[in-house]
Each structure stands twice: as structure tokens, then as C-alpha cells.
């Protein structure tokens, strides 16, 4: 509303501060994970390379690809190509949605076939599932929120109400969510590969 009289960079700074604070939120979960893993020496390592890790790698590639399309969306809005921006944003949303779909498939597999739930698992270290679903769940919630955010952004860009900074700010959020996954993937998946 009053955006026109504010100096540029307000929203960018706001998003950076959010990212900073959210980084601490994720760090908290990872610290909790490490503390609990140290406290439970018999921590299970159930993931096989194929299909477990392979599947998670595909998810990772899909999410990273959506970061690339986001970069192109920002690039397009900077050249004032609004239609192209909306297309790239659409591709990013598609990537995020695919990530969530794959992730949910994986969750279903773990819950129903491998009997790993938030409260129990075959190795009697219930915290394994609690940490796994807790960390990936919080990340998935961020991706889901990102989908809503990017949709609003795409709608605003096509109507012409959003400008370069809005798209850049959305990009900042999306890349942050990707970076978080780059910590989750090795710590939660790779460190639980079958020995």
C-alpha cells in the first residue's frame, strides 16, 4: 500500500531477517537431533542405497532444479518480461509440488511398509522416527508455504501489481528452503545409510 514512499530494499531486508531467524529454528531441530543421537548409541541406520537414498537423491535434484527455475524467474522480471516470469514461477511451483508429492510417497512407504512412525520403529529407538518426521516435516511445511507464496507472487506479477523486489524476495525464501534441504539430506538421510 504505502510501498511507493518506502525506500527500496525494505522487503529484501525483512526477508533476510526472517531467513536468519528461521535458520536458528532449523538449527535448533538439528541440535536436538544430534543431542538425541548421542544419547541413544543404538541409533538405527535403516536406509538402503537403492531405492532409499536413490529416491531421496531424485527428490533433491527436483528441489534444486526448482531453485534454478526461480533464478530464471528473477532474471526475467529484471528484464521486465512479465509473461516469462510467470512461466518460470509456474515451473518453480511445479518443481516444489513434485518434491512434496515424492516426499509424501516416501513417507507413506516408511509408515506402511517399513513401519517407521513418529512414535515407534522395528529397532526400538522410537526417536529415530520422531527426528526423521520432525525435521523433514518442518521442511516440507516450508516448501508447502512456499508454494502458496509463489502462487500469490505469480498472480501478482501477471496482474502487474508486484515488482522486481517482490520476486527477488520470493526467490530468497525459496533458495533458503533449498539450502536447508542441503543440510537435511546429508544429516538425516546419508548419515542413516545401512552400514
Amino acid at each position, binding site marked *: *500500500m*504505502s510501498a511507493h*514512499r*518506502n*525506500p527500496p*530494499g*525494505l522487503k529484501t*531486508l*525483512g526477508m533476510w*531477517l*526472517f531467513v*536468519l*531467524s*528461521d535458520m*536458528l*529454528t532449523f538449527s*535448533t*531441530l538439528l541440535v*536436538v537431533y544430534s*543431542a*538425541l543421537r548421542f*544419547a*541413544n548409541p543404538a541409533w538405527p541406520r535403516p536406509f538402503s542405497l537403492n531405492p532409499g537414498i536413490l529416491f531421496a537423491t531424485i527428490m533433491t535434484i527436483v528441489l534444486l532444479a526448482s531453485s534454478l527455475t526461480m533464478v530464471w524467474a528473477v532474471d526475467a522480471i529484471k528484464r521486465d518480461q512479465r509473461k516469462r516470469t510467470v512461466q518460470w514461477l509456474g515451473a518453480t511451483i511445479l518443481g516444489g509440488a513434485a518434491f512434496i508429492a515424492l516426499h509424501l510417497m516416501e513417507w507413506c512407504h516408511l509408515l506402511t511398509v517399513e513401519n517407521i512412525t*513418529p*512414535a*515407534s520403529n522395528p529397532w526400538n*529407538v*522410537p*526417536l529415530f*522416527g*520422531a527426528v526423521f518426521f*520432525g525435521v523433514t516435516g*518442518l521442511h516440507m511445511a516450508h516448501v508447502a508455504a512456499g508454494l502458496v507464496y509463489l502462487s500469490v507472487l505469480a498472480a501478482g506479477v501477471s496482474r502487474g501489481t508486484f515488482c522486481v523486489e517482490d520476486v527477488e524476495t520470493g526467490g530468497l525464501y525459496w533458495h533458503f528452503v533449498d539450502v536447508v534441504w542441503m543440510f537435511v539430506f546429508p544429516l538425516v538421510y546419508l548419515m542413516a545409510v545401512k552400514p
Partner: protein
Amino acid sequence: MTVFSTCHKVIGKQYIALSLFSVFIGIFLSLVMRYHLVHPDTKVKLFQLLWPDGAPGGQMTPELYLSLMTMHGTIMVFFVLTTTPQSGFGNYFLPLQIGAPDMAFPVLNMLSFWTTALSLLTLLAAFFVEGGAPLSGWTAYPPLSGLGKITGPGQGLGQDLWILSIALFCVASLMAAINFIVTIIELRAPGMGYFDMPLTCWGWFVTALISLFAFAVLLPGGVLLLLDRLAGTSFFIPGGLIVNDQVQTRSGGSPLLFQHLFWFFGHPEVYIAILPGMGLISTVLSVFSGKRVFGYKAMAIAMLAIGGLGFVVWGHHMFISGMSPYSSIAFSVLTLAVGVPSAVKTFNWLATLWGGRLRFTAAMHYALGFVSLFITGGITGLVLGQPGLDVYFHDTYFVVAHFHLIMGVAAVFAIFAGLHYWFPIMYGRFLNEQLGKLHFFLTFAGVYALFVPLHFAGFVGNPRRYPDFKEYEFLKSVMPLHIGVTHAAYFLAAVQLLFLFNYLWSKRRGALAPANPWGAATREWRND
């Protein structure tokens, strides 16, 4: 629409109104507790009326006492001490003082307030659900808070609502913190550097920085606790627990882990309550001494130092929780180091007064009262910061007296000073000065009469959070002291009605204030 206003002045007043509502609930709960401590066997109709399950036949159960204590602490810490000095005064006066048109994100600002209001409603709802309010204190330590109904009547839905309320409060505070920081960094008037800002703005700035990091850790802590309760996880629940003769099946978690997460937030929270007050008091002392603040830069840096140190001292709340003595020493040294910037501030306040032409207005009285309370409450912090002494004093009334003086009452005195000082801007009228000074002297006397004796109860080893003392032979000697303290509490609460009257009356009928009546130099007085 004024209800969902995005104007920073309206939002500031909304926050203050929310606190004013909360503080009287908090005071009422404390009076009920104080009454029960000295009349543990008296049946009271009112209690039965208010809490039919908690006080059958008017006889208060220990569980009801604990739930009142939990709600008193939570309401006072979050909805009074965190709300008015930062969000109330900050929203109203920060943009005015730095020459900004409004806060950086007005809509976000409106959302922060209404999320806070929703959080308060969620908390109060805990009184009305089955089992009533939770029993686990404002710190909500597991396993008590993590196992559900089996651990007590309020530990069912009441505790769920409590956690939900705190999570909402975290979200609201994070939004507010982002708003404050962006406003200060980006919207200062042209030519105004960071070290040209009034110290009040420094107080709000450092507090917002602390909030940004502290609430970001409490939020996941609360969410994990909620998962333990609702999803059957055991992040904070150790194995082999037997509760009320029932073996618990959870295993592997660590209650200590929750304490770490909670106090990583909890200690900075103390500074969230007091730093805005420090900034405000610096301004008030300077205006009514007719001098600039002594050592302005040192004052600003001291606030940054207090804020930074606040994040590395949380372990001093856990000396007896089973911490390595080596960690205790490290936390102790860092804790005592907080005394250095605190002393810088205190001496600079005194130096600001030195040689000044003092004007003893009501606001000045409260500011001097703040300095007094900051010293008396702060000195005992140095006592509790040492593991050897804390092992004895931990969970006694000594701790209760310490944090009420420094965190509770000192911050409240800053609120009184701020309201008297800024009332002319907020309502165009003065709060009545004579009534204000009378209220100051009575409150000041009441506060010391209430809290100084509690230190002595702590010396005797009187534990806190006990619903009555009559079972304990060694506490017979402190009963007369508790009777005195309870009377001081009645007196102190009654005196607050003076202030409420002054506030409501002066808003409509107070003496009209001219522009800049105090002769202050900061920007907020230049407007109009």
C-alpha cells in the same frame, strides 16, 4: 477500520490496552495465591465459584494453586512485560522518534497485534476447559508438561492450549521483531546515524534483535513438546518413568534438552523485558536533569553487550539440573560479566543526575525508582549467578524476590514512567502529577515491603511453588513473615487502583498539555 488499524499509534495503544487488561488478571491471581499461603485451610466461596473443580467446597487444591501460579507467570511475563515496553511504547514512539512515517510493514504490524491477542485468548481459554489451567509453571518443564492428563488435571487440554498460546506468541513476536529492525535500519530520517538515535530507540533495537533469535528457538521447542503430547514422540521424555503408579512406555528422550532450549530463550527474555525500560529511563532522567545522557555511546554499547551476553548465560538457570561443574563455572563467569555493562548503565544514570537541575515530576520519580529497583534486584543476580550459592538458593523464595524486583517491578516502573512522560503525546493531556507521585510513593514502599522479606524466607530455605507450608516444621518460623508479605501484596494491589483511576480519568479530564511540556529535545515532541 479502527479495529484492524494499520496505524502504528493505534496499534501501540492496542498493545498497551491488552497489557492493562492482562496485568489486572495477573494481580488478581497473585492475590488469590498469597491469600491461600497464609490461610491454607480456609474455605472461600469465591474460589468455588470461579474454579468448581479446583476448589471443591471452597477448599483450594494444590493443583489449583499450581495452575494459578502458572497462569500468573505466563500472563505477566509474556502479555505485560514483553508487550507494553517493546510493542506498546515501541510501536507508538519509534517511528516518531526516528522521523519515519510509520513502521516499515504496517499490515504485518496489525497482524502481530492480533496474533498476540489471539495468543492471550488461547491462554485464558485454558481456565475454562476440562481440568483447567496447566500446572507446570511458565517454564513448562517436561516430563510434567509432556505426558498429558496422567500428570495432573490441568495437564490435558489446558497444557495443549498453553503451548499453542506460546507458539502463537512466538510468531507474533518474530513478526514484530522483523518490523522493528527493518524500520530502524531503513527508515531513519535523512542524516540520522545509529548513534544519533535516542537511547529509547537503542533499547527497542536491541530488544528486537534479541526477540528475533530467542523466539526462533522457543518456537521449535514448543512444537516438539506438543509432538510429545499429541503424536506420541519422546523428544523430552526419558525411559523408565513411572507416573501415578503407571509405567510409561516412552523412552530415549531428554528433559534436560528442553531446559536448554527453554532457557536459551528464557534468559534473553529477561532482557527483552528490561532493555526498553533502560532506554526509556535514560531519556527521562536526562530530560528532568536538564542534561544530556552521560556517556551516550557507552550506554548504547552497554545495551548491545547485555543483549549479546544474554545468549550465553542460559546455563545459570540449570546449575542444579545435572550440569557438569565445568560448564557451571563457564556459565557463572559469563553471568557475572553481565554485571559490567549493567554497572556502566547504573553509574551513567547517576552521572546524568550529577550536577543537573532536577525536576521531580511523577515520571522522574518512577525513573529514580527504576534505578533503585535495578540495583537491589541486580545485586542478588550476582549472588544467584554463582553455582555454590545457587545450589542453596535455587527454587527458594530468594529467587522469587530476585526476579520480581529486577524483571517484574523494575520493568513496570519503566512502564509507569513512560506513561506519565508520554501521556501528553498519546492523549493531549497530563496524567495527574500529584496523584502520580502519591501512587509512586505508595507503590515503592509496597514493593519493598513485599519483596525484601521474601529474600529472608529464601535464606531459611523456604521452597517456592509449594501450595502451603503447614506440613513443614522448619517453615513455622517464616509464617509471620509470609503474613506480612501477604498484607503488603493486598496493599500494593489496592494502590494500583489509584493508577487505573488516574489513567482513565486523565484521558478524558486531565489538564490539557501544551506542545512539548517537558522541554524535551527528541523528535516525537516536534510533531503536530
